[in-house]
């Protein structure tokens, strides 16, 4: 019996720890602030963190691909996509053209960074840091100030609530659904396709993956393109929920999303972890933010400090788990 439990714990330990911590933090929040017990607060986690969830899904895949893979450009892409779409909509372009255009933009940016990383052998963080500054700079070139969106389609999407059946007074917005849908897509991609197997293989050992004849270069570019797609979707969701576009949107989101991925049990060395954990990482982030909001007296910068500390703790937990796994 013990022999069975041990590998199970070693395999799913970090994920279980994440879920346990989420439940614990949420429970504590509910005890401290009784108004947090309302079901709507739980759905607000999804509403408020919808773009963080999207971005973190892409980030998970990038980090899983190993080789120091990381995507620091996510916040910049969100800023660029929101500003560009707001400017295009102000220019009178139809949203049915703008949204696909923005998705193409995100995929192209991500794919471009992936190409630079794979073929020019630039370290991922440098290439994506350039992507971050390029995207933010372009956003500022488009507009130095915030651009409001007055498009009717965007407005209806931002303001129509979808009521949750069976739960009174609980609702979400249409854009909230994008994150969970992408999560399902990512689960399918990582667990049920060749792409996913290649991803885990190269994350564990790129050299062996190459020697096995797996399409490592293509997969790497695709992973960054996927992250670009997620960031672009995140940017669209962001601009819909705020009905504006601005170069300063989503500053520091790269850390939040890396934190969510790490808290979700994905190892920064690549090859270990999954996107389901990332969902709970995002939820923990959202819960901390809402506890701070319910408290009311603590300043917003405590969020950043808190998330940083939590990331550190989880990196500690991970090294404990994975060090043991290697020994056994």
């Amino acid at each position, binding site marked *: 019996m013990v022999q069975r439990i041990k590998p199970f714990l070693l395999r799913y330990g970090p994920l279980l720890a994440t879920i346990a911590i989420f439940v614990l933090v949420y429970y504590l929040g509910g005890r401290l602030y009784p108004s947090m017990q309302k079901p709507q607060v739980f759905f607000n986690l999804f509403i408020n963190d919808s773009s963080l969830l999207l971005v973190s899904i892409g980030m998970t895949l990038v980090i899983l691909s190993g080789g120091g893979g990381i995507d620091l450009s996510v916040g910049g892409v969100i800023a660029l996509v929101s500003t560009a779409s707001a400017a295009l909509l102000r220019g009178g372009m139809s949203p049915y053209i703008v949204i696909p255009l923005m998705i193409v933009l995100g995929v192209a940016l991500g794919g471009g960074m992936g190409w630079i990383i794979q073929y020019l052998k630039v370290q991922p963080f440098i290439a994506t*840091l350039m992507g971050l*500054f390029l995207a933010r700079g372009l956003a500022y070139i488009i507009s130095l100030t915030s651009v409001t969106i007055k498009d009717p389609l965007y407005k209806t999407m931002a303001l129509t609530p979808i009521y949750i059946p069976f739960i009174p007074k609980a609702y979400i917005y249409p854009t909230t659904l994008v994150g969970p849908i992408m999560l399902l897509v990512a689960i399918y991609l990582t667990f049920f396709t060749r792409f996913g197997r290649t991803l885990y293989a190269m994350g564990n050992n790129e050299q062996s993956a190459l020697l096995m004849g797996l399409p490592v270069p293509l997969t790497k570019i695709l992973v960054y393109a996927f992250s670009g797609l997620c960031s672009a979707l995140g940017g669209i969701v962001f601009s819909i929920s705020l009905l504006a576009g601005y170069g300063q949107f989503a500053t520091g989101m790269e850390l939040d999303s890396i934190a969510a991925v790490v808290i979700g049990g994905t190892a920064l060395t690549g090859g270990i972890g999954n996107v389901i954990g990332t969902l709970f990482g995002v939820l923990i982030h959202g819960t901390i933010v809402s506890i701070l909001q319910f408290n009311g007296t603590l300043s917003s910068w405590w969020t950043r400090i808190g998330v940083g500390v939590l990331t*550190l703790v989880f990196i500690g937990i991970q*090294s404990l788990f994975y060090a043991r796994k290697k020994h056994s």
Partner: protein
Amino acid sequence: MKNNIPLLKRIRESRLLWPLIAWVLILVFDAIVEPGFFKLGIIEDPVYGKHLYGNLVDIFNNGAPLMLVAIGMTLVIATGGIDLSVGAVIAISAAMGAVLINPALGNKLITNDILTKNATNTPLPIIVLADIAAGTLCGLWNGLLVSKARIPPIVATLILMVAGRGIAQLITNGQIMTIYYTPYFWFGNGYILGLPVSIYIVAVVMLLGWILVRKTAIGLFIESVGINAKSTYFSGINEQNVKLLTYAFCGLCGAIAGLILSSYVHSADGNNNGLNYELDAILAVVMGGTSLMGGRFSMLASVIGAVVIWTFTVTVYSMGVPANALLAAKAVLVMAVILLYSDYSRSLITRLFERRRGSQHGTTN
């Protein structure tokens, strides 16, 4: 031994060559586009006396914080690491200085009179020491995370990059603090013998760093850690302490940079002090020819890289490009530089040279 190498080859293989060429190119561009760019003059300042002024002096004076950060960053990158938190360290150091000066500190009745008084709460030397201590502490924290906890340097320093700005705001209680204490302005605005004080500060730090890495074995240790940390460890060098030292030194440099910056702009702003300095510093180091994989390094080349960046910035500003658009231009510049230095283009260049040499052989035979 050194004299046996021909001068031309020594020049060609020098790390200073490429950044110097880049600098000269930008200066030549300036000379053509703006004839008044190099104008130097002597001006009588009511506070600091006679001193030089002109674009070139500005480049060195405004670029001093970046040069300092680049010196620290060089050592960190030489060990194969990276420090993304330098901008946040600058903000923390600036916030520290502003809070300690604040004459209203510990005063129950805060009025505008007290706040804007040309006075300080803490003696200036203690402020400087506190600044430097805060920055070094930040560096030590990064170093501990990287060396002892073995967290990848990007993530370890990314934590402070974002949390650090929160800490800076925590220190100033979320406000932009204006400084009214005039002796503090000396670091960023003062002059010694007609040249800005900041240049002397850079020179002193550079000299200290040079003695540290070239007159002791530490420089060699740093390079060997950057080339292969494991074999360095097995050859009996405590690689963890070497890393710790470089991060602490980088924090120290960031703190001095923060001191100069806040003194120059007369205020401390947790969100904007030292914004994007991490990118500029990395760019300066890469321009100086230090590989991001670690290994051989040259601090002087990084300083010249920083000068190149500021010359570029001043040039772009004087052409009337908005400040925020500069971000995109710089990103393109970094990418171009990194691509130029990458193995891919290196091998392309060597192949070109080999082909030419091959054809020469063909003709002589």
